[in-house]
């Protein structure tokens, strides 16, 4: 039996966490969640996820800062980070993702197949 991959879904919007978590769980992932950057940092220090689906616009600590911290921490930088945002266009998000050393991006709203494909690709399954 294959070990379940753990995905951290970080979003300040509970309904997003709800539908995305449901989708990922149905797809066979373990799902952790966080509602801001600080929670992301706290939870990954408790349990290392296989991928972080990171919303950018969050209170307390936003996604950019969280990404910067993860990618600047040698012990954490290998965790794939996927920007998950509703705020910018494709061109912009691509640049931003590159700039913050994120491993990928996913725009909201998203196509479920694309999301699953990206997660599978980046998490190794």
């Amino acid at each position, binding site marked *: 039996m294959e070990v379940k991959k753990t995905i951290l879904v970080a979003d300040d*919007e509970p*309904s*997003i966490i*709800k*539908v*995305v978590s*449901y*989708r990922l769980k*149905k797809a066979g992932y373990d799902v952790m969640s966080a509602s801001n950057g600080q929670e992301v940092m706290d939870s990954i220090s408790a349990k290392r996820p296989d991928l972080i689906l990171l919303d950018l*616009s969050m209170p307390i600590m936003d996604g950019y800062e969280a990404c910067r911290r993860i990618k600047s921490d040698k012990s954490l930088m290998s965790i794939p980070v996927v920007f998950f*945002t*509703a*705020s*910018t*266009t494709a*061109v912009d998000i691509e640049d931003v993702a590159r700039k913050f050393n994120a491993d990928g991006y996913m725009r*909201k*709203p*998203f196509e*479920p197949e694309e999301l699953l494909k990206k997660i599978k690709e980046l998490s190794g399954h």
Partner: protein
Amino acid sequence: MNYISNYSQGQVSKKADIETRVLSDRLNQEISKVNQFVSTMSGSPWIWPALAYNNIEDIDKANEVLDRYNGNLKMSVSYLIDKNGMTVASSNRDAKDSFIGELYYIRPYFQDALSGKPGSYMGVGLTSKQRGYYSSMPVKNPQGEILGVVAIKKNAKILEEYFKVYSHAFLVNKSGVIFLSSDASLVFNTLWPVDKNVLDELIGSKQFSEIFPCKPVFSKELLNDTIVSYNKNNFYALRRSISLPGWDIIFLSSMKPVLYYRFFGILIIALICIIIIIFFFIFEKEKALNDSNMQLLYMLKEQRFIFDHAKDFVYRHDTKGIFIYVSKAVERILGYTQEEFQNHYTTYLTENPLNKKAAEYTENALRTGESSSSYELEIYHKNGSRIILEVSEEVYFEKGQIAGIIGIARDVTEKKKAQDMIANSAREWALTFDSMADGVSIHDPDFEIINVNRTLCDLLGKKKEELIGQKCYQIFHREDQPVSACPLEKSKYTKQREYVEIFEKTLNKWLAISVSPILDKNGDIVNIIHLIRDITERKRLEKTKDEFVSTVSHELRTPLTAIKEGIAIVLEGLAGPVNEEQKDFLDTAKKNVDRLSRLINDVLDYQKLQAGRIEFEMKPGDINAVMRDAKQIMEPLVKNKGLVLNLNLAGDLPVVSFDRDKIMQVVINLVNNAIKFTQKGSITVATSKKYDNAICVSVIDTGAGIKEEDLDKLFQSFSQVGDGKKNMAGGTGLGLAISKVIIQNHGGKIWVESEYGKGSAFYFVFPVVERRRPNYGS
């Protein structure tokens, strides 16, 4: 000496001859006149009856005749003598020494006439003792019988007047007795010695009265053309007979003062010459004077013409300021007649403050005598309107005293109005220029600032004087030469309006700069108008709007994501089985969520594209490759609808720079539209070279086509054409508007050709030449 004498003698004789001739002619005329009168009277029918009948009535009639004829003679007496020698009628019958009753029987003239021949006689009157010339004629009755004599005595003093004009002229009888003389003292002397017998006979005749001196002047008888000595001087003597027999004129011409005479002659000639010369000069002068008079006249006429027609009038006022004279043109200019314009000058002035100065000038001129230069004043026209006069005045003097002012006034009302208008418009323009919201600078072709408005000064925090004359790059960019981004520099080459928006760091402001070259008729740049608008606030608002749009879209997308995902989870059956009916509704919901999602994306895209804030990544690439990729993407959709997608790609296309993703977006949009509006047939995507330097892409379908009236609206945002909602499935109404902006940003053009019901052809072209968008700002 002898020669000179001879010569002189000739001169003298000639002169004397002329003078003697003149003298004798005059004497003869007088004698002849008297003779003629006597002759006429003797034949009168009123004369002879006085002698024949000797009654008072006839004598009266005779007297009338005598009076009438005698009236025409000076100092003479006409009288009638009967055959006894007694005077019966006379013109002097009422005088003290009347001839009436006197006896003249012894008189030779009476004797002659009584004997039937005319009588002529020089002698002294028996009654009057006055010298006279006597002329007589016999008076005959109609039968020819002599009844008496009619006579006229002419007083010799009248005749002697002719002699007095000469130095030495005499009337002498054949014995040399002087009867008439230029020298009165010589009368009744003899010029030369007279034989004693002759002398006695003369005395007895009583011809020369009782007084008879007999001292001869010359020793011998004077003959014509001889030289005689008189008073120790030599004279040339001329002797000429007159019409009265026995009587001669003796004329003595002095020999001594010949030279003097000659000199006198020369003098006279010289005098005549001088007179001629003087006359000539006077004449010439007069002629010149006439000429100048004419010129003066013309000048006056011209002046009058000018003054009558020009907007000028001339005036003169005395020291008190009362008009003495004003030219006629005042009527035309001020409406007053010359007569009405005789008051003090201030009575015509308006209350315009201008006039205070004018009055000062005038008073000052009258006080100091110094003429002022021209100035302006305002005067009432007779009709009440105001006339501005430009006045030039000068003080005039009489006998060294200031007598008043002479001046010329010109109506400058219209000119003034025009000047005011020009000044006003200049002021208006300056005010407008300075109060424009945009900063404006005017440059010469070499970037130098010719003029700046206040707005620009304020914007730059500098004074006008600091800016004029400077090069714009020194001011705006603090550089020593034009910067490459400078639209002014660009405009110099394109000769077209150029526009940029830049963030000026030195000012910490966003500026929109519009540059318009002004060309002369040869197309050369004369000036460049540089418009600078502070768009910092606009930029701030734009940013706010962007943030707002971004926030709104984020806020829209987030719930949309949850809705979409929720529907998807249910639809996929992850949350339990779904029946077909439920599935159908969930499917509809999903499609609309997707549409809403695309709409949000398109609005955001379009807004950003329009604001020019989406960067285009222009890279050289193969346009055909884009078409192939697009086909790959669209193929499933096309097949899904049972259509065919053809590629018709040209092989010789030049390499062009373009933003791959954006061009792809346009092509996909066009193909998407084609699919939507085409029910059967094919869609053809083609590339070709256009005009050697452009690439043309076309998307042609065999679909519904577009009505002609809708073609224009097609590229507008949210335009909905065609038959309504059924064709709009999945569309946002922004696709073509976005495509248009993208193509325009490539320096190209997009358009459509369509035949309704047969299909549409969309084309876009963009040039091979790299067209870089200016990249300013953050």
